[in-house]
């Protein structure tokens, strides 16, 4: 146990780092295997891939020497997906009806459906979090999430309307409120989590990033108008550098500060993430994605050379004329591109972020957790429900 003990008055404070022992390579090969198995199973293996991924993250993350355990199964996810379908089918008929209509009714209809989706998105993400927490164990004790997913969805929906109306200025208030709702409803055994952050926690970084962005857009517009577009050549470059820079700066600060406001009884979480580490990860992601696409392009080119002869793959018509070979190649290219995109995002962005949070995290006062007792038996959740069908981005 590598805890650093410091003496502060009479209170002995221990800081225990969180450890992460997984490697990108290990995740990569597991994912490759999972993706390949998704082909003969027509995509259904994705529930097994999700479960495997969580086992990888959970079991490789250890707190004070003990790893997290993920006890969810793929079948639970599959069942949850089937439940979610029941909600989506009626929505499909609404979509179909709208697509055959003309005029203002379509706009109003699509707006209502979009709002409904956004609302369901909040519901789904809360239910998904509940599913994951209630299947997470540490030292033999389960986590849990209480609160009401509909209440959370309503909260998120109303806040986001306010954020929209204030051109984003209300965002720190929304963020703090939602973090508080999530964490005050999170339990480890019989002990309740707490969240001490307020809008002020992220106000500084947020409004700085916001102001930078506003000044940048204003300056670009101003210069563009004055010079009649002549000086606009450098604009995209400037926008990318400042835009991404602001984003990484903000994301690193928000993650660090918000996670550092999380507490469990007297134990506190501390997280420190560097913006440049996030930027480096994004650079690695972009680089590897480029490499992957170059490889796919080369392989595609070679295969085309081999079977080419009478076929012409430069147009849809040519592909159609090539018959099954053409369809096979198009499908293969499509699946390979899809797999490359998602593999690189998983390995460099998602895994990278988890690694940064885990390795940047320490826990103060962890010994207080040794008295936590198991909570009451949780209501069984059938899968993540909508989260399986709504493509809610999360681990």
């Amino acid at each position, binding site marked *: 146990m590598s805890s650093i003990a410091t003496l502060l008055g009479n209170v002995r404070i221990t800081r225990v780092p969180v450890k992460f022992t997984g490697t990108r390579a290990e995740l990569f090969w597991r994912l490759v295997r999972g993706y390949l198995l998704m082909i*003969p*199973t*027509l*995509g*259904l293996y*994705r529930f*097994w891939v999700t479960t495997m991924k969580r*086992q*990888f993250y959970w*079991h*490789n993350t250890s707190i004070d*020497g*003990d*790893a997290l*355990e*993920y006890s969810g*199964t*793929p*079948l639970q996810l*599959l069942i949850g997906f089937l439940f*979610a*379908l029941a909600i*989506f*089918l009626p929505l*499909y008929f609404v*979509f*179909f009806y709208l*697509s*055959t*209509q*003309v*005029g203002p009714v379509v706009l109003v209809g699509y707006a209502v459906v979009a709002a409904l989706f956004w609302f369901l998105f909040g519901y789904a993400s809360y239910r998904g979090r509940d599913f994951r927490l209630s299947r997470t*164990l*540490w*030292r*033999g*004790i*389960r986590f849990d999430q209480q609160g009401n997913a509909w209440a959370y969805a309503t909260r998120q929906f109303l806040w986001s309307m306010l954020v929209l109306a204030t051109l984003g200025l209300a965002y720190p208030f929304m963020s703090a409120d939602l973090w508080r709702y999530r964490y005050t409803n999170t339990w*480890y*055994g019989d002990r309740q989590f707490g969240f001490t952050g307020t809008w002020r926690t992220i106000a500084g970084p947020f409004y700085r990033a916001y102001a930078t962005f506003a000044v940048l857009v204003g300056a670009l517009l101003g210069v563009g108008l004055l010079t009649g577009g002549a000086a606009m050549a450098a604009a995209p470059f400037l926008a990318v550098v400042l835009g991404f820079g602001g984003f990484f700066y903000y994301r690193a600060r928000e993650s660090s500060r918000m996670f550092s406001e999380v507490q469990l009884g007297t134990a506190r979480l501390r997280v420190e993430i560097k913006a440049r580490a996030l930027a480096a990860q994004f650079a690695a992601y972009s680089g590897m994605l480029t490499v992957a696409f170059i490889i796919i392009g080369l392989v595609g080119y070679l295969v085309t050379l081999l079977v080419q002869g009478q076929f012409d793959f430069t*147009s*849809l*018509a040519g592909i*159609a*004329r090539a018959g099954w070979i053409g369809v096979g190649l*198009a499908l293969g290219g*499509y699946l390979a591109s*899809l797999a490359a*995109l998602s593999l690189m995002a998983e390995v460099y962005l998602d895994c990278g972020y988890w690694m940064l949070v885990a390795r940047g995290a320490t826990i103060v006062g962890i010994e207080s*957790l*040794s*008295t*936590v*007792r*198991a909570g009451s*038996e949780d209501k069984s959740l059938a899968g993540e429900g909508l989260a*399986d*069908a*709504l*493509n809610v981005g999360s681990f």
Partner: protein
Amino acid sequence: MEMEPTGRYYDGLVAARRYVTLALTRDAGSAELIIADRDTREELDRWPVDSVFELAGLGDDLRLGAADRPYGARLTLPTGEWSTALREAIPGLGRRSRLERGQQRRVLAGAVAALVSVIAAYVFGVPVLADSATNLVPPAWEIRLGEGARLQIEAMLGNGRRFEACGSEFSQANRAIDRFAAEVMAGTASPFTPRVTIVRSPLTNAFALPGGQVYYFSGLLERTETADEFAGVLAHELGHVVHRHGMEMLIESSATGLLVGFVLGDMTNLSVAAAAGATLIDSRFSREAEHEADAFAGAAGNRLGFSPQALADLLGLVAEDTTMTRSLALLSTHPLTDERRAALEALEVAPAITRPAFSDIEWQSIKSMC
């Protein structure tokens, strides 16, 4: 190597880790796994061997639970001599995870079989279903839909200015086209009144909208050399109108979206992946629609006395284009496969009737209308 098996023990009641030593005993009739504190030697629990199971997962550590203990009760042993020995001493250890894996495989196989039958039903059933579902859609609904599409397309073609079709409504060319369209549609019991519009545009394309609207671009008209070619393309597009292919496509693509969403797990179909996948599948159905429209044009040619093979000639001609506009041209929506060409050429022309689709004067006025 330690002298006795040691591991970590969590009782599932309190969040405390204890280092323990393990021993197997058989004195109570059935074998038990005795868990004792490593330092104090105090016995913490006895797990009946029958109820002990191994937890599947990642890593090489042996992780055990017990069926009649709290949910989170765990015993973990690092990989090594002792974990191997324990596995040998308790052969039933992996039974539970084996059973679970077996069950998972069966469910996965069942789900895949179900999905395969859904896809098969979709591939073979949806064209038929979409056909009968289309007949349930009131024509007035389809006309309204076509009207909306017309406004959008004309706004796009007008490019910011007011949209203008070639030739006035009562010009000789347009009257001849209207007459021809009415002749083609006669006797089809189609609820739609055809309306053909010739549009000034460099694209070599022609298409039909739901509800009876047909567009023919001047780019294609320039390449059209004979009245029969023109008649063939128009009859083909009117075939789409009569068969209500626009409506059918709408129904089919909705079904495709549902299916692709199911396979990719993104029911919103908002991702590029889902959209691309759906397009790939939909193109299959559009080929079938082209066959139907070709057959319709062939039948119309037989009835009215023009050669439907001219349609194939024109498609072949446009197929040889190597311009940039090609991907947007006729072929992208009307791919000319060898098979399709053969089917077109096999259409017989009734020899008795040789009346041309348009008189020379009419055809000249059409050629020069843009």
